[in-house]
């Protein structure tokens, strides 16, 4: 059973002469629990794909089935709910709210639902992220790696079925990159989360179960690294 399936997914930007087709009839299936790496040149449409899957952008045409619901047809409130509960999105830049403490930033998706995370799970995540002594700090007082880890924590807090990461290590040094990739792999194994990871880094891609290559908005290769 596929957790994620797209049919003819297309996204165009602009109109007339300046129109750009960022994503061109992409058909893609992802099984539950798979760790997928997406690679491709800059401007090939990787981010666009991830944003569409994450429900933060709307396709020009095509369908996106998540657990058999076409999210392209959801209303605004339902789509927001989807973003909150079903997916975790991690951008290249840290994208934390600067005025909220690290703890609140991590808990944000649940707080927006007027819920508090279970203490055990929260402590577990924070321990794994190594942010235990930084919870009351503001994001600005954290290093880049720590901020990215907080962003990952936020993506994990609701235990979403799908984790989407757009070059999460693009701005980090070797050591931080390794730590974060192993964190993602841990989460993938521990919670049976499906992960789509956009990366430039060959080594990082090789950690995945499957590598998809995109060029000019089309999938040009799709191969399994591991069965």
């Amino acid at each position, binding site marked *: 059973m596929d957790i994620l399936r797209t049919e003819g997914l297309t996204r165009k930007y602009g109109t007339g002469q300046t129109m750009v087709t960022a994503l061109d009839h992409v058909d893609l299936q992802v099984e539950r629990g798979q760790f997928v790496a997406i690679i491709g040149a800059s401007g090939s449409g990787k981010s666009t794909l991830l944003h569409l899957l994450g429900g*933060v952008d709307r396709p020009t045409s095509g369908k996106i089935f998540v657990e058999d619901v076409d999210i392209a047809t959801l209303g*605004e*409130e339902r789509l927001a709910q989807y973003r*909150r509960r079903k997916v975790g999105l991690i951008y290249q*830049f840290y994208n934390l709210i600067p*005025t*909220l403490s690290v703890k*609140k930033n991590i808990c944000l998706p649940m707080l*927006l639902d007027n819920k508090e995370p279970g203490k055990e799970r929260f402590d577990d995540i924070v321990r794994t992220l190594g942010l235990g002594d930084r919870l009351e700090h503001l994001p600005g007082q954290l290093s880049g790696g720590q901020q990215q880890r907080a962003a990952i924590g936020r993506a994990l807090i609701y235990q979403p079925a799908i984790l989407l990461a757009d070059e999460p290590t693009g701005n980090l040094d070797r050591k931080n990159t390794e730590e974060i990739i192993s964190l993602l792999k841990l989460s993938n194994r521990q919670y049976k989360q499906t992960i789509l990871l956009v990366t430039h880094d060959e080594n990082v891609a090789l950690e995945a179960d499957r590598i998809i290559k995109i060029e000019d908005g089309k999938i040009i290769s799709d191969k399994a690294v591991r069965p």
Partner: protein
Amino acid sequence: MNIIREYSLDQVRKNRRTSISIIVAVLIASTFLCTLLVFAQSFWNQMVQQEIYTSGDWDAELMDVPADRLGMVRDNAGVKTMFVKGDNQTAFLPEGTALPYFLIQNCDSNYWDAMYEKNMILRGRIPQAPGEVVVSKDFFSQNQTYGIGDTLAVEIDSNVRTHMEGSQQKDAASLTIVGELDVSVSSGYEGYLAYGFMEPDELSPDSEVVVYLQMERRGKVYTAVPQIAQAIGLPKDEYGNYPCRYHSTLLAWHGVYAPGSFFQSDVPKLFLGLLLAAGASMAVFAYIIRGAFGISAKQKIHQLGILKSVGAGPKQIGRTVIYEACILSVIPILLSMVLGYLFSFGVLSAYSGMTSEVFGSRMEVSFSPAAALMAAVFSFVMVLLAAHGPAKQMSKILPIEAVRGEQYSISVKKAKSHPVLAKHFGFLGEIAVNSVNAGRKLYHTCMVTLSLCMLLAFGFLAAFTVSDISNAQAENRNHFDVNITLRTGERIDGALLAELKAMQGVQGISVYARANCAVWLSGSDQSAEFLQAGGFDGADGYIVERDGRYRIPCVLVGMEQDAYENVLREAGMEALPESSAIIVNSVAKNPGARDYEAMQETVPYLNLRQGQRVELTEKYSDDTQGDYEFTVDVAAVIPSMPEIGLAPSFYTLPVIVPMEEYYAIIGNFSDEMEVYNYRNYVNYVAPDGMDEEIQGEAERICSAYLGSSDFMTSSKTERMRNRGRMTGATMFVVCSLAALFGIVGISSVLSAILNSLGQRRKEFAMLRSVGVDEKGIRRLLGMEGFLLSVRPMLIGLPMLIIICAAQCYMMGVSIVEFLCAFPVWVLLMYIVMVLLVINGIYMLASKKIRDDVIVEAIKDDTV
């Protein structure tokens, strides 16, 4: 705390500059609204107080109430307070007084408290015990030996209007004079008016009194009072009404109307006007403040995008803006109450200082909790209205677009080339035009805000100027220089009129009285010329048609016998038939005409001939109570109204009769109309510069005969001076409100500019890093400031000119006259100020930007 609320609060704290600019805008706007309401309430209060001062604080009046029923009235649950006047007495004065009687009306203590007579006491105090009286001023002037404090031995004749005529008895009594009263009564009564004191409980049961009521619930007065009248057994009159009257002016100010008269009153119109003014300014302010919220939202757009992408719903995103609005508006709205009060206190004090001589009283500034609450609600609604747009916009935007911020949406717009500017300023000129175009929002804000403020403030000033000019023009066409109105409610004393007619040094005089009436005619009675110009059927609203008959409004004019005969003689008539009348047979050819000359053009009105008999009726409108009918014989038909200072309304037929006949006719009118129609008008033509002197002399003559509320004098010079004062004072109020608008407009434009420049620091640094030098930056920004400040003026000014021209056209005022009176310098000042402020800001900003370290500015990037 809810995370959205916490986020909003944090943002407000963090973004000081935007928060402050919103607070300032809300503060000034709510101060304006508060001021508007304080003005309105003070005006209302003034009107109510004035009404109470001149006619007393009562809601309804019951006449002919037998004294033994007073208890029933007092105990009625609907009655709050009752006061009584009546039990009239005639006191025969001791030998040696100029006139033989005091005509005494007795009033109880409630009456003295609530009614207006106490305001007419010139010296002394109000009576506080039976046997004390205040006496009209002519008693003192005619009997110099008497003074306040004197006790007179008199014989009292209780001429109670009972059915026992003839059984009058005289009792010896003594009266103590405790005060002098500014009232009068016609010399025909051979007595002096006096007011005494009575205890209603001690009235003899068969005496009849007038009862005034203040109601427990004012709104019910029109139903409750007839019920009271019925309960105490008062008889109905021939029209089926109880003998009661209502204080309809005062009731109207309190929003209480007789059934069906709501739309005839001015109060709802004034209230509607106030609501419109408040609504319009709320809308304008909301637009301006909306800009500030928009800026604030734009600044947060990246964060809102993050919130969205982690799952905040559109409602939650919208709420961040609304919460921000609430948090930011509480303090300024509270503060605006104080500021609004202080501001209106200042303005109104100045206003009342300037107009107190015109009105004869100063205006009190009043500010009630209700008005404060209303101002707060208005302001809050305005803020929500302002925040609504940006809130909706933010909640609709795609999360990823928000996360990216605005960088894409601008660059995709194709740069427009601007040949003229490009030629003179080259590449930089083009960049400036493009960056103004790119900052569309900023441009729009400046545009709309500045031109709206200009239009509102100066459009209103223009309207005011035009109506002022047109009033002055009307005044100049006035043939007479001094006008006197005598309104005693009864026939004017012949001695007084004789003295007025003998006035020295006047070049012309007219004396007349007038009463509205009507004549029913058929279509064949209209003249051919009039028929051609539209006829009866073209006079909608003036002439009523029923069953093929037309009701033509008439004005019955009474002229002194000699003047009447003069008019007849000029018409070539000698004979003076019984019950004769002169008909002025002319009607405006085109009453809709705009300019004065065309409006004056007349044609013959009716096919009336000398010797014809015309049947007239008192009932000139369906609401007129009486329906007395009378006939006059046409002694002469003349083509135009004699110059007596009376300009008949459109489609109104003047019917001139000798004064004696006039009085004989109106004596049969219904009581209320009879009393009203006793008014006499005396007009003088004065030599240049003498009008005030003659007015003073007339004033002196009249006050020797009449109480000061029974006559009114005015002169051209006085009216001109008063108009000048009123104009100055009103201009002051309008300008002060306009200034508030201007401050809001300019301050919000400033914050928009500062914000836009701040956001574009990076852009400028980039330009510098690719080699644009300091001079270039200065020119670039100078140009942008110039375009931004000049464009609103270029759009606003023509619109303003159109508005002014339209007003001039409609009121028939020439452009030159308008330009002489319109405060052009204020407009110029506003324009210069806008140009200076905006360009000044750009100059400062350009200095700061040139001082920026390029690398830091480029690095200063949060995303």
